């Protein structure tokens, strides 16, 4: 029964929806649309991996449709927002924490949020993410690398901003 199958993925779909929308209510709406479309589908993949990728694809399309309807231009094409500096992973580990990562995610562009949402948050494999995004696995590989670079950069930046903000506060 598709109901039970769908419910098994709601948490992961919701997490991906939050990555895309950065908003709980919107994520809920997108997940709802995804469920409606999945239940109304004429053909449902029987294979579990295919079913999973199919659901994420539906959710992604629902998000893009919403953005278009609301007049927001969302290009989920194969364009990366930031040119990452290779091998720039140098950051003290303690700076990577729940708050800095969450703030860093807020600052990422949609392409990077999307790939991180699929791989790191929803836990899809490269092949599954490639299926959802309709790109080659090699593209997923380079995209996740760049996205993490960008995120590390933002995490580093948010920590710097926090320190300077604290400094300003203390000197008042």
């Amino acid at each position, binding site marked *: *029964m598709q109901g039970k199958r769908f419910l098994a993925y709601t948490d992961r779909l919701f997490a991906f929806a939050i990555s895309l929308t950065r908003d709980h209510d919107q994520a809920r709406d997108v997940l709802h649309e995804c469920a409606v479309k999945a239940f109304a589908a004429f053909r449902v993949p029987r294979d579990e991996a295919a079913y999973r990728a199919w659901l994420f694809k539906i959710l992604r399309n629902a998000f893009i449709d919403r953005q278009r309807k609301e007049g927001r231009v969302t290009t989920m094409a194969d364009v990366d927002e930031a040119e990452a500096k290779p091998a720039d992973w140098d950051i003290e580990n303690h700076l990577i924490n729940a708050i800095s990562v969450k703030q860093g995610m807020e600052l990422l562009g949609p392409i990077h949020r999307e790939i991180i949402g699929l791989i*790191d948050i929803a836990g899809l494999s*490269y092949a599954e993410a490639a299926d959802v995004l309709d790109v080659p696995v090699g593209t997923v590989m380079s995209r996740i690398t760049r996205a993490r*670079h960008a995120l590390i950069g933002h995490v580093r930046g948010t920590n710097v901003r926090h320190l300077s903000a604290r400094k300003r506060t203390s000197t008042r």
Partner: protein
Amino acid sequence: MSATAKDDDQIQDARINAYVDGELSAAEAAEVAAELTRNSALANNVATLSRLKAELRATAEPASGLDLADLHVPFRRRRVFAFAAALLLVALVGITARVTLWPVSEQSQSVAIWKLHDHWVEQSSSAAGHGGETIDQDRPAGAAGGRFQTRFPQASHDLYLPDLSAARLMLAHTEFIANGAEAMVLHAGYVGSRGCRISLFVFAEQVSAGTDMGNPTGNAADAPAAPPSADLVAAAMAAAADAAMASEWRIGSLHFVALARGMDPAHFATVADTIRRLTIEQQPPDGDTEMILAQSRASAAPCQA
């Protein structure tokens, strides 16, 4: 930094990311692991990525508070629309369809369609018991791809035999049986994974099964709640044993009878109604119908035929 060096760095970057994601082959992963013991900078990068991945994973919030009941509202609404559309179709094209379902008290006599059904059940069970193919080779040529089309001699168009695989009922048998000099009866058999066997018979309107199909001796008057025009089913039900059930309907000049023994009555009712709808619509089941079939099977006891 030269372009080549930059490319090398990017490849190495992608490689350690894939390592952290568990996407490398065993040999490649072992290679990276060995490299990590020799290269502390690389080991630091892997530690950074692992920590980042763990923190990202931890940011995932469960979809708690989501009103899952809402998810089914459009589903119900769609069913209402589908039902209304089916009614409209009936009104427009003059199809008359009627489903009757009733359990039968014991009767000793047999009639032709039960004989055909029982004979097929015996054969298919025997074939399965000997490791034989459960799906007969006489499946219609158009059965591939979930659309089970067959040419019915008395009809002007192909006939769609419902795909019930969502209820794990596989179309395993189709046979045309001579019924008099020109008429034919179609017998389609569905085999379930838990012992269920459903037969679907299709007759042309003019066929009087009572006379042409082996002269059933059952008395229609003995069948409880027998519908006035269902001569064939009335005779069949009158002759059936306990736990037998049947459903009949008409579409234009064709007369359909679905029957089974030992099935969960509610499940049979659902399946028979689905067969009826699909033969009216002449379409494969949609997602909703598949869900209904699967749910019905999940809540039904195995067959006791």
